[in-house]
Each structure stands twice: as structure tokens, then as C-alpha cells.
């Protein structure tokens, strides 16, 4: 499947390029745009980015696989990121992770059959003071307990 940036995203890329003395420096921003448009970072997305930024495909590939926020496969419409790092763990992070796992019937980095949910155990998200937490896509849900987690998942289900 060929991938091309939409004119809107192309304009955003041009804006990003103004920030840096090299095109290469824009690779992370442009990868986020590619991921937003395509849903995940496919081989084609990497190729297009390499060509847009005039860098090698290998460079893009190396960057994609280094950072955890770039996904090399499609994730769910609601990507649930549960922090289990120490501060969250001390306040029930693992319980929430297990709860979500059981409720959705998926394991770490898996996607539900209806593609509505995916689950990821993440490292510290900077919510230690409001632990435990889940991030759903870009939004943080903090100070959680079991009931709250159920509420969140149910409301996301209903939104679908």
C-alpha cells in the first residue's frame, strides 16, 4: 500500500522543517504525523518519510524501532497504556494492568478482535503523584481504582 502525506500534513511538515537546520531533525515529528495519518508506522510510511526528508530508509527504521511511541503494527482505536512503574505499582498499578487485561481479554501489546482496544504496559508516565494511572491514546486518567477503571472502559465501549 503506497503512502503519501495529505496536503494538510505536508504543510505541517513544511512548518516543522523551519524549526531545524537539517531536514533529518524533523524525523520524529514527521513520524508522529505519519502514524496519525496511517494509524501505525508501516514500511511504506518509513519510505515516504525517508524520501520527504532526504535521509535513508535505514535511518528512519533505526529511529522508529528506538522509540516506544512509534508502533510497527496497528493498535486499537483506544490504546490503553497502564503504568506499572514503581510509584504506580505501590498504589495498585499491576492490579489495574491485570484488571484491564482480564476485562478486555488481551495481553500486553495485543489488540481486541473488534480493534477497539489495545493494551500496553508502559514505563513511568510522570503521574507518580496521581498514581495509579492509565493513558488512553493521548489522555491521562489518574488517581484510579478498580471502579474507575471499569467506568473508563465502559464509557469507551459506549462511545464506539
Amino acid at each position, binding site marked *: 500500500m503506497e503512502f503519501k502525506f495529505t496536503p494538510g500534513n505536508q504543510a505541517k511538515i513544511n512548518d516543522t522543517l523551519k524549526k531545524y537546520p537539517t531536514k533529518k531533525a524533523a524525523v520524529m515529528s514527521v513520524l508522529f504525523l505519519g502514524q496519525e495519518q496511517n494509524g501505525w508506522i508501516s514500511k511504506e510510511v518509513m519510505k515516504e518519510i525517508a524520501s520527504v526528508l532526504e535521509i535513508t530508509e535505514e535511518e528512519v527504521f*533505526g*529511529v522508529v524501532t528506538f*522509540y516506544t511511541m512509534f508502533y510497527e503494527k496497528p493498535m486499537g482505536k483506544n490504546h490503553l497504556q497502564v503504568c506499572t512503574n514503581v510509584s504506580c505499582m*505501590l498504589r495498585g498499578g499491576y*492490579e489495574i494492568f491485570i484488571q484491564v487485561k482480564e476485562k478486555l481479554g488481551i495481553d500486553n501489546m495485543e489488540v481486541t478482535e473488534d480493534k477497539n482496544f489495545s493494551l500496553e504496559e508502559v514505563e513511568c508516565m510522570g503521574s507518580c503523584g496521581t498514581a495509579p494511572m492509565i493513558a488512553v491514546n493521548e489522555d491521562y486518567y489518574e488517581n484510579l481504582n478498580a471502579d474507575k477503571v471499569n467506568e473508563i472502559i465502559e464509557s469507551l465501549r459506549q462511545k464506539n
Partner: protein
Amino acid sequence: MEKIVLPDIKDLHKIEVYKANDGYTAINKALSQSPDDLIEQVKKSGLRGRGGAAFLAGLKWSFMPKTNDKPKYLCVNGDESEPGSFKDRQIFELNPHQLIEGTLITCYAIGAKTAYVYIRGEYHKWIKLFQDALDDAYEAGFVGEKMKETFNTDFACEIYIHKGAGAYICGEETSLMNSIEGQRGYPRVKPPFPAQNGLWGCPTTINNVETIANVPKIINKGWEWFSKIGEPKHPGTILFGISGHVNNPGVYELPSGTLLTDIIYKYAGGIPGDKKILCVIPGGSSMPPLRGDGIEGVKMDAESLKAAGSSIGTGGIIVMDEDTDLVKVLARIAKFYYHESCGQCTPCREGTSWLVRLLDRIGQGNGSSHDLDMLIDVASNIEGNTICALGEAAAWPVRFMVSRFRDYFEKRVKKEIVLPVKNKVHSMRDTAFPLDSP
């Protein structure tokens, strides 16, 4: 006590409110002085970096060459990924303009015309909040080319946000620069140091968000005022983030040198269920943990904590009560550094995997006294032998936790400790924590 970075002023994130509270006057004042004067003032103020190493900010600035054959850069480090640290997000949210103003002053002092504020990618919300503030500042003519007119000066400076994408290591300053350059976040071999050879080979200074946010007040109120707050060798206020088993976790801006027990009991409301403290990590998960029975009288500043056998780090305090499974905690911390090792150099790449596997085995009840010695040995073999400080960050918690809690670990491997709540050691305790709707 006056708060410097997060004062209790309603809607301070709004540019009008910030302006009404002396906002953007420090930059005006700074521009009327020479860069060297500014560096001197910050040096004298005793401001030390808030990102972990507590290095003198003014001294760091003075390493920048005075020549102008190459562009110079400032990187503001908001990668904030150390477990237990969650202070910078408060600055982005509550007082972004002070950070912007501090960035402008720092750029002027070191001769940089471009600053990149590196914000961890997961902070979508705070990136947006900070970008909004930045847009307002541009609009108002405080940043960019318009500065020249606004402040009647030759100096202009651009500030850009660089969004991270999930890598703790990018908080390491040379790794951060590689990340901005669009590369894998590998730390660089030093020397050369960033002030000589930084972003794109140009002189570069990297400062933590909180460090920079202190600068406008130092300029406005004078270095003497600042140097008298808190402990003389590590003056100012510190944003202490406290998390774990306390009743009121959160960020508290307090003078350096505040007693650790005061932060825990006075500000954070003590321990749920009035349990005893087993362990406290005072500066983010990479810093040496302290025994709960040894924190009486420990003050929270770089020198005092050094004397107490730990380090101020990012000021992220993690409190663990007496029911905590320390083996599991240590295994989780080790797993973090294993996960975040960039994999570039041998001791860290291989050593972190060894530590995790050893600790997992001990956690499964298959460990021995000999394995505890091995943990200390492996950790010591990583320390000092790596390209960057992640080696120490991975080694310290293991080495110090095992040696300081040797009695506890011995009992665990001999199965003499019965964990309080079976399989639910880290449950959301019955003493419910306060819950706010997200």
C-alpha cells in the same frame, strides 16, 4: 515561604496574569546587562541544576565559548522520565511563561539564538499547554524577531518544542541532542562536551526545565536574595514530588534543606494507616534508597543527602511502607533501566539484563544469599564503565538497596518473611487514597 517556580497565583499560565505579576520584566532587565554579568549573577546565586546532577548552572553557562563562528544552542530538558519525578509538567501547566522568560534570558547569557524545549512525547497535554503559552508569547512580541522591537534590542531568539517519542535515555544531555538531530537516542562519548561540540557540532548548553524556570526571579530579585533561600550550598526552592505510600502525594515547592520527614508527614500527610516507613528513595528511582529507620534529621538538599548516603536527583521522593515487597520494588526498578538502556555500550546493555533476571529469580523464591552478593557484584561492574550515567542509574538502586536492606533480602531468600497480603502486596490498600476525577 515564598514560592519561586510555582507561586500560588490563580491563572498564572495566562500571559496577562503573568505580565501583571512582573512577567517579562526580567528579560528586559537582563537585556540591559552584558551576558557575562548575567552568568556571574547566576553563578553567585548558587543555582544548581534540578535535573539530577545538581551542577552549578552559572558555571555550566560559562563553559560556552565566547566566539561566534558557529551558532549556539540552548536545550531545555523536559524529558522528565525518571520514575518518581513529575514536577516539570506542573511548570508547563501552571507557570509556562516563567519558563519561556528563563529560556530567553539563558539564551541571551550564553549567546544562543535558538532554544529547543525537549518535552517527553507522552506529555501530549502539557506539550499543548506549553505550545499555547509559547504562541501567546510570540503573539505578544516576547519571543522571536519581534523581541527586538518589544525590548528595543538587537537580540532575538526562537523557542521551539521538540517532542520526544518514548525514551528515558533522551533525558541524558547528549542523547537528547542526538534525538533532536533526528537520530537514535544514543548518548555520545564525552569528551567532547556539549559546550564545545553539541547540537550539530555547535556549542550547546542543556538545562532542566525547573532550573531555567528559576532564572527570571534570580535576575529580578537579585542573586543575593536567591542565595539566602534554603541551604547555602544548594540554595533556592526545590519542587519535591512525593509519591508512593503517603496520604497526599503531589508536588511541593519547599526551600532546599527541608527535612525529609517534614515533607512526608507535614506536607504529604503521613503514611496511610499510620504504617511505618520501610524505605524512601529521595531523588527519583535511580538514587540510592534510604532505610525508613534512618531518615530522621535528613535534609533535602544535594550536600545533606550526599552525607546521608544518597543524592538529591530530581527531588522525586518515593515512600514505601512496612508492608512493601522490596524485592518486587527493586525488580521493577531494575526492569525499568533494562527497558530504557539504549543498548549501545556493553556493561549497560548486558548488565541490566543480568540484574533483571537475577531479581526475577529471587522474586520467584529461587534466590540465595550468594545471589545477593552477585547482585552487588554485577551492579558494581556496570558502574563507572559505561558511556553515560544510565549505568550508575541502573546500578545504584540495586547495589544500595541490597546492601542497605541486606537483613530484609536475606530473610526473603530464606523465606523468613511472610508477605502481608498474599499476591496483593501492592494492592490499592483499604485506606483508600483520595480520588479526583481525571
